[in-house]
């Protein structure tokens, strides 16, 4: 069953008096438990497509239906709810909240769901166990290495057990060893929890792990292969 269905999607950004077409006639579908990635050079439209799937942006034309919800038709409140309950994000620069501890960073996603303290605690500890960071609960982001920070970001994305995780260049700031660790962690979660992972990357190390590789160039899909 498709959890993401993109049809004839076009995204244009205004530039001066005209516009720039970032995505042009994209049509794709994703099923549950996929481990896929958009690959391509900078400016090919990877992040824009990820943002639309994540309901952070809307298509100019065409349709993007995520978990049976048309992104174009969602109100701010509905798109926030979709992200809060079903979509996790992992960023290149980790984007952890610097004044909060590892535990609190992971817990934040659950605070928005108004869950009780005990339920949150159980979920946070479980998420930190998945990424092997239970010993860093009280650490602040500044006290963590790059690899550890990205694992916290993964825990934060996974703590609410989302159906989809969108990862934008998650290994770009990491060395080879940490990149492999991170990817293995994500692969494990994908297999155990059946979470759909979609990457935006041009990192060869990531590409080796992908089970589906969608190539983008100048806003168009130029290749879509199962590996």
């Amino acid at each position, binding site marked *: 069953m498709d959890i993401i269905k993109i049809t004839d999607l076009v995204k244009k950004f205004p530039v001066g008096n005209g516009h720039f077409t970032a995505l042009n006639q994209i049509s794709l579908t994703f099923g549950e438990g996929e481990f896929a990635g958009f690959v391509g050079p900078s400016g090919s439209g990877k992040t824009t497509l990820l943002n639309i799937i*994540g309901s*952070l942006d809307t298509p100019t034309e065409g349709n993007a239906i995520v978990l049976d919800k048309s992104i174009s038709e969602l109100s*701010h409140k509905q798109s926030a*709810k979709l992200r809060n309950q079903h979509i996790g994000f992992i960023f290149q620069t980790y984007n952890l909240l610097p004044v909060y501890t590892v535990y609190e960073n992971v817990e*934040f996603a659950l605070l*928005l769901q108004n869950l009780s303290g005990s339920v949150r605690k159980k979920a946070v500890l479980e998420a930190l166990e998945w990424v092997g960071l239970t010993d860093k609960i009280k650490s602040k982001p500044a006290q963590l290495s790059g690899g550890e920070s990205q694992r916290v970001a993964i825990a*934060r994305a996974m703590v609410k057990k989302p159906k989809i995780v969108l990862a934008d260049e998650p290994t770009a700031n990491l060395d080879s060893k940490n990149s492999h660790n991170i990817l293995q962690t994500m692969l494990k979660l994908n297999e155990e929890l059946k979470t759909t992972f979609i990457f935006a990357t041009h990192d060869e190390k990531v590409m080796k792990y992908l089970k589906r590789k969608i190539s983008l160039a100048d806003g168009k899909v130029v290749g879509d292969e199962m590996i």
Partner: protein
Amino acid sequence: MISFLLKGILRDRSRSLLPVIVVSLGVFLTIVMSAWIKGIFSEVIDMNAKFTTGHVKVMTRVYAENSNQMPLDLALLGVNELKQNLEKDYTDMEWVCRINFGGLLDVPDKNGETRAQGPAAGKAIDFFNNPKEVERMNIVKSIVDGTIPKKPGEAIISHEFAEKFGLGLGQKVTLFGSTMNGSMLFKTFTVCGTIRFGVTMLDRGAILIDISDAQLALDMENGSTEMLGFFNDGEYDKLKATEVVDAFNTKYSKQNDEFSPQMFRLEQQAGLEEYLAMAENMGGIMITFFIIAMSIVLWNTGLLGGLRRYTEYGIRLALGEEKKHIYMTMIYEAILIGIIGSIIGTVLGLGMSYYLQEVGVDFSDITKNINMMIPPIYRAAIYPDLFYIGFIPGLVAMTLGNALVR
């Protein structure tokens, strides 16, 4: 969520330190200025009440209209009976007669010839039988040399006057003037003390004598220029005073008799009504000013903070937080910071106000040439409203400043 925000505020000093300082400072200034204005105005009013207006004052209708000229011929008569009636009608008040008079003080040389003369502003009170009057006017503490009058024919004069004309204790001064009946007044007094109130208006040419001496000298038997009423607890109560005044005027004051007695409340005299209104307005203006000034500073701080936290808001949006919720959390943070700053500012402000209440600031050098009855030392007054008054500008400014950031 509140505890999450509180942790952020406490840990991220760049988010909270400057706003807390600004709010604390604004609240501190609001409280100190409010306490100080209240203290000064209260002291001025209290001083006027004790020396001039009483909490209420009875004069003849016509004397009231011309009181600045101190016209003795328009004074009250039958004051003993009137006083008895008032004491019977208003048991929680004390009633005292006073006579204000003007004249010329003549200082004789050893041959009895005029050595010096100066204008006199005289006040006669009940020195012999009413120690509360002496205490009320702070006379004992204000005496520089000598004592209060203890027998007829004794007078206290201004210390400056005594120094200027080389007058010592036991020496004679003669008061020239006119009596209630318009005849010439020549009455010689023995200087038993010199006084300095520290208030220019009271010290300039002052001569204080017993009221029985004044009544005798000024042909004012059973008369006085005014009768002052004071609440026994010493505190002025406007509502109570209004009731007393209305009842008295209904009973005693007659529209067609200009010599009938009329009673006035404290604020109805010496322009104090406007003075009190000004005090209230100043408090309001000051708080408004602080709210505007602090809001501008906090708005700017909020803008800078918002820019610095732009990434954080982006992450929170990605995590599924609504824009409106993020905005509301900013407001909650502002309220928390406002409360913290207001508490700090209130504590510091009350501390400073207490210091100013106990010690005050001596402005006597600056006010020595001012012809108003104002205290030489400006003190603050701590009153219950101060415990929450700072929260108004503190919370409003912080919340408004951040609300404008949107």
